[in-house]
């Protein structure tokens, strides 16, 4: 993962009065990785030893003269080249020199000359390449294995062009950059050469970073000066905070990383005073650093060091970009929340700490009315746990509907607010328990068991408490878990409570065998069904199941038996509108219950009938399976009959060709 290291100051700056520019004309590489040449916008050129943060030598032009472009070092001749007052034969835009190439002079009107050629004939005519009203915005110089390039971009009436000037032999290509939103011009350019292609990276004020790739060999030059459209690809869409970017710059560091200065850090508000390294392959932020003082949108990088003028200093920030992997790239936050959202959540959290129930409810309503609720997932968890911890501390405080609403967003899970389920059980808020069981994917077996225990031993008054809860505060859905208030009124019953339901009465009319009567009331059944559908692992569940009393086990087994019988019939009458456990879930629970309590059940007289029944199920299942096996065998025989018959050593056959 890329990293930005602790930076240090290379030198102080004398920015212009209005702070519009940094006072640095340019930073250029010198003989090795530890030397740079800094040209300031007044009159001096200074050579620095970077690691010592110390100037080695400095030159100044005469009073009255100014340096018009940054001085460059020519490693071949060990000379420095600077242009004062912008003039040779015509106005000079810049002089470029990179290792392995000769110094190149780029004139303001687009002509390019090698410095040697220019000096040998100083009075030579310099042609005008650019059109009227076209002016250079940025330029650089690239040396590839076979060629030297002068590359520059121009602007003409809002259109931007890229010029690719090959030297020796000289050819020129002109490309037109695609237009961004009207009125937006690129803030910065950076060019790099890799795999026989020149890659141009440019940043727009709206935070879009584009890359255009041009082959080193290029197209056949068109003498007509026609500009080819330059294809581009959007590498990154950087967050810009409020408004557009003004002084920002993007620099390619390697094939996957770019450094950006003057752009907000995604998780630190809208301040634009940050230096960030982004991975363009995975679109992830790799490193970020706040830069004190004004940022001028200037950025240079040489030998794993970034040079940034800011405020009144020029800083050097070493960085590292190892080859990235998806895992390392994912280490940092991918998408980002704006400051506003964060503020709102923080203020909501404070509300939760102190405010009365009604206000909390209002805040939650407000929060959940947002459309981007899924993006707030981590914050919601925080809010929910704040709410839970306050409820735990303050016995008088409880906001059942707010919690239910939060759970219902499906953004929460057990590990985010581990106390929520137990809190709901403690407060006898079975509706919330049910929601949690339904929506939390990670409830531990101990908690599942605690719920089960609570549900089985639910007294009728408990249920009625729940009913009143439901009647008072309807959930966001009319029908939750087949548990709508109307049906609740209709099916008010509990097997233990002895109140007859209509369903039961219906069944009683046809006087079914006792095991076909539901041993628990509908509400209890719904809650138990939810338990049956939670994920668990046998070995973790088993020890907790042993906590159940034998009465509880018998009742639960009776219920499971009832469910099993219902399933064995053709149509399960209660499936409509209910989240029902599957047959295998039921059987798994029967097994794990029997495993946990077998010895106790054998000794319990009430369980005897139950066990006998279960035994007969098993017997019938075994018989069924063996019958199926027989059928499978016969069908396989059928299959074999159609298969090719075995040929012996010799046969005489008739075949027909068509």
């Amino acid at each position: 993962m890329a990293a930005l290291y602790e930076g240090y100051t290379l030198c102080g700056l004398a920015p212009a009065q209005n702070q519009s520019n940094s006072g640095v004309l340019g930073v250029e590489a010198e003989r090795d990785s530890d030397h740079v040449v800094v040209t300031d916008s007044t009159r001096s050129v200074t050579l620095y030893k970077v690691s010592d943060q110390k100037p080695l030598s400095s030159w100044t032009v005469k009073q009255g003269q100014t340096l018009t472009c940054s001085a460059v070092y020519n490693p071949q001749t060990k000379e420095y080249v600077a242009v004062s007052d912008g003039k040779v034969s015509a106005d000079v835009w810049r002089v470029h020199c990179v290792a392995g190439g000769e110094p190149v002079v780029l004139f303001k009107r687009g002509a390019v000359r090698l410095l040697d050629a220019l000096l040998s004939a100083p009075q030579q005519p310099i042609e005008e390449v650019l059109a009227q009203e076209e002016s250079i915005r940025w330029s650089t110089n690239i040396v590839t294995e076979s060629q030297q390039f002068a590359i520059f971009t121009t602007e003409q009436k809002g259109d931007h062009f890229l010029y690719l000037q090959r030297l020796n032999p000289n050819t020129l290509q002109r490309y037109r950059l695609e237009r961004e939103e009207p009125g937006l011009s690129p803030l910065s350019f950076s060019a790099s050469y890799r795999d026989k292609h020149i890659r141009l990276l440019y940043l727009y004020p709206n935070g879009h970073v584009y890359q255009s790739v041009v082959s080193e060999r290029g197209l056949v030059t068109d003498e007509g000066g026609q500009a080819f459209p330059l294809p581009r690809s959007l590498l990154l869409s950087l967050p810009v905070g409020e408004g557009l970017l003004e002084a920002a710059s993007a620099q390619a560091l390697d094939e996957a990383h770019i450094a950006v200065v003057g752009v907000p850090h995604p998780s630190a508000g809208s301040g634009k005073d940050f230096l960030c390294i982004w991975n363009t392959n995975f679109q992830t932020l790799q490193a970020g650093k706040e830069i004190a003082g004004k940022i001028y949108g200037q950025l240079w990088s040489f030998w794993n060091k970034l040079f940034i003028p800011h405020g009144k200093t020029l800083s050097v920030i070493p960085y590292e970009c190892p080859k990235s992997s998806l895992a390392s790239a994912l280490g940092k936050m991918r998408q980002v929340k704006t400051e506003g959202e964060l503020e709102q959540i923080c203020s909501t959290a404070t509300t939760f700490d102190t405010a009365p129930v009604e206000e909390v409810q209002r805040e939650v309503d407000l929060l959940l009315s947002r459309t981007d609720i899924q993006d707030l997932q981590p914050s919601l968890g925080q809010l929910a746990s704040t709410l839970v911890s306050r409820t735990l501390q303050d016995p008088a405080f409880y906001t059942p509907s707010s919690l239910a609403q939060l759970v219902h967003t499906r953004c929460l899970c057990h590990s985010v607010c581990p106390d929520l389920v137990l809190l709901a059980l403690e407060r006898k808020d079975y509706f919330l328990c049910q929601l949690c069981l339904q929506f939390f994917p990670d409830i531990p077996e101990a908690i599942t068991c605690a719920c089960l225990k609570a549900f089985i031993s639910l007294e009728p008054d408990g249920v009625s408490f729940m009913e009143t809860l439901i009647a008072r505060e309807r959930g966001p859905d009319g029908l939750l878990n087949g548990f709508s208030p109307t049906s609740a009124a209709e099916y008010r019953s509990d097997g233990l409570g002895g109140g007859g339901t209509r369903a039961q009465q219906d069944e009683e009319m046809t006087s079914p065998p006792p095991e076909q009567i539901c041993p628990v009331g509908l509400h209890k059944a719904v809650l138990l069904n939810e338990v049956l559908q939670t994920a668990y692992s046998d070995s973790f569940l088993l020890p907790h199941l042993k906590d159940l009393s034998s009465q509880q086990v018998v009742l639960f087994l009776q219920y499971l038996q009832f469910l099993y019988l219902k399933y064995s019939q053709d149509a399960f009458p209660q499936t409509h509108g209910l989240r029902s456990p599957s047959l295998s879930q039921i059987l798994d629970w029967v097994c794990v219950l029997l495993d946990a309590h077998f010895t106790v059940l054998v000794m319990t007289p009430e369980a005897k009938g139950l066990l006998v029944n279960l035994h007969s199920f098993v017997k019938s299942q075994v018989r069924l399976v063996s019958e199926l096996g027989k059928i499978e065998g016969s069908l396989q025989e059928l299959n074999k009959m159609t298969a090719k018959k075995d040929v012996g050593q010799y046969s005489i056959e008739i075949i027909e060709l068509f």
Partner: protein
Amino acid sequence: MGEFKVHRVRFFDYMPAAIRAMAFNRRTERLALARADGALEIFNFADNYFQEKVIPGQDGRAVEALCWVGRRLFSAGLNGEITEYDLENLRPRYTVEAYGGPIWTISAVAYSLSGCVPCQVGCEDGTVKMFEVLEDRIQFQRNLDRQKGRIISLCWHPSASLIAAGMMDMIRIFDVETGRATHRLLVERGVGASKSKEVVVWSIAFLSDHTIISGDSAGKVQIWDGLTGTLARTHLVTKWDVLALSVSQDESSLVAGTSEGTVVQFQFLSSTLDGQNKDWVRTRTFKNHSHDVRALVHTETAVVSGGMDTQLVVRPLLDKVEKNTQESAMRKMAFPHRSLVCCAKKAGLLLFQFPDHLELWRLGESDGHGNPGDSLPVKRKPEKLIQLKRKGEDHICCSALSPCGGWLAYSTVTSFRLYRLQNNTISITKVSKLPKDLRSAHQLCFSTDSSRLFASSINSSVVVVALNQPECKYLHTLKPKSGSREPVHLLFASEDGKWLATANTACEVQVYNLDKIKLHCTVPVYGSCPTAIAIHPTSSNLVVVHADQQIFEYSLVQKEYTEWSRRLQKQGLHSLWLERDTPITHVTFNPKHPAHIILHDMFMFCVIDQSLPLPEAKTRLFNQMILRSLPEPMRILHRHAFKMCKTFQNLMCVRLLEDHSLVVVERPLLDIMSQLPAPVRQKRFAT
């Protein structure tokens, strides 16, 4: 189109011998392969992997190693001899005793500037012997320092100044100049019970950067630094032996064959992006064999492997070939590319050729008729009439049975034998007086009326003898004008006795006029080797099928390609036809339907109806199932010339008898597998 009564024969117990050694000649793209019975085979990798030449084996000749020196092929074996082969006359040229006990390995420098190519053998007695390869023989030069323990494997350094020798428990590096051993690399033994067993360095490779790679009986592939004599890396690839190694020519990839039947690939790769610090990394494992992989060749694009399970496998490396092309398909070569079965179509007899004997069978009979798909009751079972053991220690290289079933001939590289058969009484009499020109043959063929025997002899010539009782008489020798020295591998005498067609491995097809006893014409040479030839009984058109699956029909009367042949070439054969990976080994005609050509490869037989339109590129080539399901009037719309039948598999022979019934001889690969010894025990789940 028609019904066929098919005699489906599965009693030919053909059993190929295990592959012992291979050597690939990168210049000519020929693979030389030695089998356990001493037989040698030459495959042309540039021509659809066609098995061009077979040199029959010999009792007691156990080839342990092969090597090419230019176009010359040498072998060395446990009999202690070095043999050079005559690839034109398909026999050993000479044999030199090395006087060092059994020879385990032979190695020659890849190229030599001096012109005199040294060649080395590693012997049981611990000597490395240097031989000089002269123009017509090899000559012993000297011994390198004698070592204790046998020399199992050898490899020259490309500079030809050093030699690495794999031995028991160690590797030695010799300086060729002085003959002294400069380094001794100790190879660790296996762990556990095998600790007490000597480890055998089965195979060794010496790279130009002085890296030595060894494969040993403890299952290790080890990378050594040959300059310092230190071990750089050990890869444990199997619990059993690593038997063979082969390095690609650019030394970037290495394959190792194991006793488990796997081939493990290593590649010289850099673990970092900048390409520095390259290392041999285990990359792929191929499992194409059930038994030991004894011989391996790493060609530019493929791994070629062979071993105990007798199959030659060409496994293309998918990073080196274009995907989903014919080139990227794996090939398994299980059967010889020539027929080992001869059928007397008038007499209903089959002659099976084995290396050491011949079997003559009479086909069974059934009565009555049946519907397509039925098996008819067998009234008379097939019967083995004669089992004829060959004389001498040379293996049989060719055999033939006359159409009437009255004559039987076979040849080894040193002798030729002819027998007179009386089928009714099942008696066999050897014809004792044979013309002296008939000493050995590459291929044999009887005329349809059984009055002539044609035997292909040296320099592409054919000896013609007349068969009269009780003796046979030399008539003349037919010679091509081309002066080719390549052996004739295909012979066909026309039904009317007028023509004899021959094809040799130089891709030349000659047709002789037997009435005038002279060369009638030479078919224009096509770039791929002919795999089957036949002359039509009535039209006298010659049909030639080549290793690249192309079919040509040449009119002997007009001496030009026929109209149908031109049409076929113009339209092109169907892509599925061209993608088949076994050659057509026999062509015949159906006298009832003159427009029908019957041919077969290992996986199908095909009736080409020249009167029907040729299948176009988009037409379904294998359309028999569809045609069967269609009503008769609809079939006409979907018919095309190629009627292919895949009912019978692993075909050794398809012939049409005179009574218009077909004989197909199948040899299921499973039957071959079941006769192999048990492979090394492998732990499988729940065993």
